């Protein structure tokens, strides 16, 4: 069965017909064509597909597109400004937190959701926000460091 949905992604409104079974991840990647959001397990286990939906980080592979009707979504492509990187993108680059880059979009969105919500997150907050986001390259230290660096920049500005 087809449904008509209206979704705002990165400030752009999309009006599309979708099957009931289509996930938000499939909608973002296949319908809208934003492939920055990655599919690692399709079971909500790895966190690579994380996007921000109405201010909260969600695993887009276990949300149906129809559930996102009327929602505001931010994906990695919507991070930062048109001609300027977001502080998190800068800090991920600086600390070498993006190695293969496959978990990176999900990590960035989890980091952004945290920084948007808490002005001064503790180390425990950072670990909790990134918990369940799997990375097989880094050993995580550079990623938590990147979030800390972005945080300190945010607070300086």
């Amino acid at each position, binding site marked *: 069965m087809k449904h008509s949905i209206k979704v705002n992604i990165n400030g752009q409104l999309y009006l599309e017909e979708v099957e009931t079974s289509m996930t938000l991840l499939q909608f973002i*990647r296949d319908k809208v064509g934003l492939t920055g959001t990655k599919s*690692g397990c*399709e079971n909500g286990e790895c966190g690579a597909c994380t996007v921000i939906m109405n201010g909260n980080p969600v695993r887009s592979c276990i949300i149906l597109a129809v559930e996102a009707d009327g929602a505001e979504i931010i994906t990695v492509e919507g991070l930062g400004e048109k001609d300027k990187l977001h502080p998190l993108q800068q800090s991920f680059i600086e600390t*070498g937190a993006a190695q*293969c880059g496959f978990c990176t979009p999900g990590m960035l969105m989890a980091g952004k959701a945290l920084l948007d919500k808490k002005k001064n997150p503790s180390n425990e907050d950072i670990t909790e926000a990134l918990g369940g986001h799997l990375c097989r390259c880094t050993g995580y230290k550079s990623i938590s460091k990147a979030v800390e660096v972005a945080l300190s920049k945010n607070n300086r500005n």
Partner: protein
Amino acid sequence: MTFKYVGKSCTRNDGVEKTTGRALFVADMKFPGMLHAKVLRSPYAHAKIKSIDTSEALRQPGVFAVLTGEDVPGPFGVAIADQYPIARNKVRYAGEPVAAAIAINERAAHEALKLVKVEYEPLPFVIHPKDAASEGAPIIHENLMNYHVAPYVNPVGKNIYQHFKVRKGDIEEAFNKADVVVEAETWFPYIHHVQLEPHCAIAQYNLDDSMIMYSTTQAPFVVQSCMQELHGMPLSKIQVVAPYIGGGFGGKSDITIEALVSCLAKAVPGRFVRLLLTREEMFIGTTLGRGGYCKYKVGVSKEGKILAMEGESYLGSGGNADYAVNIVTGMGLAGTGPYEVPNLKLDVYGVYTNTPPIGASRGYGHPEVHLPVERLLEKAARKLGMDPAEFRLKNLLAEGKVNGIGQVMKHENGNVVLCAQKVAEELYKSPKPDKGENIMVGRGMAAYMKTPCMPTNVQSSVYLKLNVDGSVTLATGAIEMGQGTYTALAQIVAEALDIPYEKVNVTNKVDTLISPYEWQTVASHGTWGTGNAILLAAEDLKSKLKESASKVFDTDVKNIKIEGDKLIYNDKVLKWGDLALGYKNPDGSALTGPVIGEGHFVPKGVQNPDPETGQGNAAADWTFGCVGVELGVDKTTGEIHIYRLLNTIDAGTIVNPQVARDQVLGGMTMVLGSTLTEGIVFSEDKGNIRNNNLVDYKIIGIEDMPEEVLINFVETPEESGPYGAKGIGEHGAVGPAPAILNAIYDATGKDFYELPVTAEKIMMALEGGK
């Protein structure tokens, strides 16, 4: 020696692409008219295929083709031709493809496969390599002795496809003289690489006998040659393209899904066909790693010298072995660990098992054998009443000592003694911390060594293209899969040409039609091999620039000087960019042509080891290091908390400290998982993988990371490497497992020899007093 760009933590050159979602991976690509494939996989670990009926599946709307083993060529394989793209007559592991459907979309392909009727006759199966090698085990490859094999492969028969021997001195006499003899059996379980990016390949075959394939591969040139072997197309028409890879760790090297996808493309000429694996299929349908069982015995004198070592090791290799042959070699070459052993007998057997094929996996061959060696040395030191660190220091392969295969250790091989001293000093600098009455704190260490086990003459080639603005493009066949190779190689280019790092760009995909040849990106060989090719290409580029300049200035080449990006003759100056596309005379006529630097590197003097003794110059280089661990064991839950993780490694000149440190940490973290939480579990009734998802197969998460990680470098320059550098990608994986087990013993007095050591196993040991 000081460098301008080498040794600096230059910012990774792939950072912007990868943090903005612009880095393109194979699964992100779409092509006109692209079809989708799904694979039907065997539910049995070992079975005869009595019949397959695809007729009903083929009649479904949207289905273009359904293939079985009868429709595809084979067998193929680099070391042993023992595999088919789709199983023929029998299946040898649960997950092996038995049919594949191509359809308009994935769902139609999936639905069609439900209608394929397969009749199996289940056979007894075997998972553990020791069982597979024992008398009466079910035979997995009946025709093994007739297979086509590479010259260094020595099939023995039954399930044993390879026997690697190392012989040195007289172990019998030495064991008789030994004051203490210790023995152990260890098991490094089957593991999965768990790359975050699932395997994906998209291919199109055309009637002019050409094929293009986009694949998540570390080995595009190996894939190209496999496709030629299978289909007989000319190499010049096989275009394998590898963009960024979302993690490899060996699990995307050699051939995984590509042989199958090339057959699918051949079935529907002119159409692109895509196969994207699910997470479950990655576990059951690609390569696994490890699967090493070792039975070791070590004899030492009361003065603390190792006198003799005897090892019998079995590598479980899966339903088809092929690349596992090289893991067997690694277990032989590194079989003593980083210690001098005057009397040595090692037998390493490669054994077929009814598991998915075992392929390269970060550090392959090394972690498997370091486990028994380092556990036994700990045990021997204890029996002697000697400090374990001091005992190790007495036996390490310092400069001038002879390793197990007869190579004399040179200064450039690195300072393993200093690495071990530094780790011991740091690990034991203060008393054990008090973590409360329920926590038993322990410390342990393990020294390690690693060689890039690879064929004797692996090749690396690069081009350096000079642009008119003075920037340089490096074209390489090496793959960037997260390890930072493009950053390190760009730093080497900048150093060699003495141009700013920012002026060097690296091609961000490999294309077998246009990229220079590179064997494959494995074995921690890129910085060393490709780096060496860059040095040669830089010299080539500079000499070609001088030659062009000599024509412009009308003088002999030897009068031209290079300073920065300038070519100087007396008071006349040209910029490199002026010559990049050739120099034009004032009347408009061309004087010189475009300039491009070429470099080709192959290691010299590396031999196949002697088949009877394993002796010879069979390892291109060695890298040494030492790991230290401080942990706590919770008496009430059996949980292990790692507090400190130390690693000091002598990997020659470090090209980029930030990237190198994260490589070591990444390798250690992976093996932290193998040691504590991972390990493939097979069902007892069917032999299929039970934990084929990321909940049941638990890799280390951010919450599991040690509080303190300290990675240090000793930088003894490697003579054969670019600016003294060598590889570092896998080394972090070699030492942690035995170091953790040694620390658990220190904390609890319990000896563990099999991984993973779960909380449950700890509790059983603590309660059972074992």
